[in-house]
């Protein structure tokens, strides 16, 4: 699968650009603010029906213009597919596949599988456990439809139980029977989710580790540990034991909503002890492993967008990563870099189809 031609009109700072792409490596080179990331965002948009960066659609229209248009010609299993998105100010966006407009945007998600690796990914290490659970849940629910359903059910039960705790506390009446009803249901759903997360990490970890080793050249040991209260005891026991405490806290302290993925580097927390380059290598490997899951699921190679990937990585890691993504395991890739020579030099001796574009003030020229 690949994008062969892209036309961008009035999308952020790009006024009018139309270019043909390489099936393998495409790099967008230019100074800060030139519009390199905007090109990747346009491609992202055609896959996810929304911007990676700006969720307010109208703000993606170029200032002082009335609309934007993104039009991509993809090849899927040898067939050409035109994906079109047009947005006029104050109107609903039009999203079309081969001239036919989608009724529901959700129907388009997954047609063009794509993984974006962005500088903001390091938030996965930096921020709270919520982000890491979302990351994990996002991957699992793509291949396991029942998982998402169970998760929504669990979250609703949890919200009901918390509300029940608040009511009981407010009225000064501790009533176990009505809490038990929630506890037993939370137990059933939570246990299912716990097992599924455990199973997921068992499959995901070796793929992740392999990518990390390839990028870092085996320089350090990193690991992901699934942390869950449910590894210690059945959820029902935990909920029962903590019921009185939960009542006082007016909040459910036990369950899979407390799960986390612990990221370590040589036994220590990545967040505190990883260097910036190590963290970047780590999140890049997280995304590449996600790529593998998506590839397996869709039975085709997703498009890979690498935005400012070289920012924090040393020359060895940059070279290792470029070698990795240019292998046949990966498909079409898009890279941005502020340095005009780095990427072309890296591919100089390789026999990899490569197209270079210079981006300057929103205009794009092939080199």
């Amino acid at each position, binding site marked *: 699968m690949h994008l062969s031609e892209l036309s961008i009109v009035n999308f952020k700072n790009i006024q009018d650009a139309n270019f043909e792409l390489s099936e393998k490596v495409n790099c967008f080179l230019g100074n800060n603010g030139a519009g390199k990331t905007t090109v990747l965002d346009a491609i992202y948009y055609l896959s996810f029906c929304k911007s990676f960066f700006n969720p307010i659609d109208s703000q993606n229209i170029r200032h002082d213009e009335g609309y934007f248009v993104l039009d991509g010609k993809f090849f899927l299993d040898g067939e050409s597919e035109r994906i079109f998105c047009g947005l006029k100010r104050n109107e609903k966006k039009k999203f079309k596949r081969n001239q036919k407009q989608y009724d529901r945007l959700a129907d388009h998600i997954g047609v063009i599988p794509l993984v974006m690796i962005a500088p903001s990914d390091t938030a996965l290490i930096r921020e709270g456990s919520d982000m890491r659970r979302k990351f994990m849940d996002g991957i699992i629910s793509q291949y396991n*439809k*029942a998982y998402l*359903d169970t998760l929504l*059910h669990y979250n*609703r*039960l949890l*919200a*009901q*139980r*918390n*509300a*029940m705790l*608040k*009511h*009981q506390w407010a009225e000064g009446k501790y*009533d176990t*029977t*009505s809490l*038990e*009803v*929630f506890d*037993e*249901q939370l137990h059933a759903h939570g246990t299912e989710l716990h097992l599924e997360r455990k199973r997921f990490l068992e499959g995901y970890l070796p793929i992740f580790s392999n990518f990390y080793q390839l990028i870092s050249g085996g320089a350090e040991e990193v690991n992901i540990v699934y942390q869950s209260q449910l590894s210690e005891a059945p959820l029902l026991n935990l909920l029962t034991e903590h019921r009185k405490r939960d009542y006082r806290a007016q909040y459910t302290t036990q369950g899979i909503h407390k799960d986390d993925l612990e990221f370590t580097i040589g036994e220590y927390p990545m967040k505190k002890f990883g260097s910036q380059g190590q963290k970047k290598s780590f999140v890049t490997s997280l995304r590449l492993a996600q790529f593998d899951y998506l590839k397996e699921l869709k039975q085709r190679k997703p498009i890979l967008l690498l935005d400012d990937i070289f920012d924090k990585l040393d020359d060895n890691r940059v070279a290792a990563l470029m070698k990795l993504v240019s292998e046949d395991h990966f498909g079409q890739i898009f890279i941005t870099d502020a340095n005009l020579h780095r990427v072309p030099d890296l591919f100089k001796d390789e026999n990899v189809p490569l197209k270079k574009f210079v981006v300057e003030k929103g205009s794009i020229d092939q080199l």
Partner: protein
Amino acid sequence: MELPSKLLEKTVSYFESLPGVGRRTALRYTLQLLKMQKEDALNFGASVIKLVEELGFCSICHNVSDGDICQICAHPKRDTETICVVEDLRDLLAIESTSQYYGVYHVLGGVISPLDGIGPKDLHFESLVSRLAEGTCKEVIFALPSTMEGDTTSFYMFKRLKDFNIKTTSLARGVAVGNELQYTDELTLGRSIQGRLPYDNAMRTF
């Protein structure tokens, strides 16, 4: 839409407060009232007043009732050994209209949903427990919506009732009658497979 009369405005906005009624429809209803025979319109109004002032609830099952005991509870042919627990009047009416049920009811008045401020004590559980304590009832049917809140409520009742020596049952869930399997949603089909029935038993339902 600005209306040229305060009186008109008031009635329109009351109609508008009803579920499923927008402003245009509310205006249409109001104008229709004005078109009616004056006497009919006055009777309409009086019936609303009478409804609100006089309608009562059955002291046994909490169904709506003109007297102390509702028509169903008072009916000599209804089987008082079976009590069907429903969320509200609408569900009671739906079951009645099947003409397949001869037992009596218990109207809970809602389902447990702490998020909406409804806990067990806001529902008619205690009167159900006292009814069962009398010892006539042999089976309680949980006929609550198949939502998380409905399930939670059934489960709560089940816990509360387990000390009574009474059979508890719940409505069958599964593929709708006349539906093709391939068009049945995954969740329903999944549950139907899990809750499958012995064939001879299932046959009798057709």
